[in-house]
């Protein structure tokens, strides 16, 4: 979750890691490097919970 501050208030959206995770997940033919990146992001999330 990323909280952005605008001139009028707060706007909440996905953070960079969430966006990256989704972009790799949606690839039909990810490279090995992208799969490793995805695994790292998942592990990082699991460790944080």
């Amino acid at each position, binding site marked *: *979750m990323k*909280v952005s*501050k*605008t001139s*009028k*208030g*707060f*706007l*909440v*959206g*996905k953070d960079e890691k969430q966006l990256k995770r989704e972009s790799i997940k949606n690839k039909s033919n990810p490279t090995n490097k992208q799969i490793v990146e995805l695994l790292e992001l998942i592990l990082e999330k699991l460790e944080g919970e």
Partner: protein
Amino acid sequence: MIYYAQIENNKCVGVSQLNEVVEDNSLMILENYDTRLLNCDYINGNFEGYYTKLSTDKNTILSDGIDKAIIVAEVYNYLDEQQLEFTGEVVFELDGEQIIKQAVDGIATIEFSTSLVGEYMIKSNINNYRTSELKVVAQ
């Protein structure tokens, strides 16, 4: 019983009731035992503390990043009297991020929108006297 406010660095850090008179420069004698004085500033012999009452036009919004809730902070003093003349700063906070808004006629407002489903707790305070909270749900 004698009531005291303990003042440190021009701020009330404690309210107490004691059986005897205590001579201490940091203790101010009070007429009543009033815990609302806690965290008040003590300026020129007067206590000052302001807080907000939060409300919104929508407790539930769509998580589309477009729908928005208007969060309204009305300013009250520590005696729970609305302060329609207040023009100071109101701090709004969400998940550690802060926005400072200048109150106009005792009211400050911000907008809130999100693209993520969830429950969001928006907080506000004035000079750290007392924090108010408001929950907005995004579906």
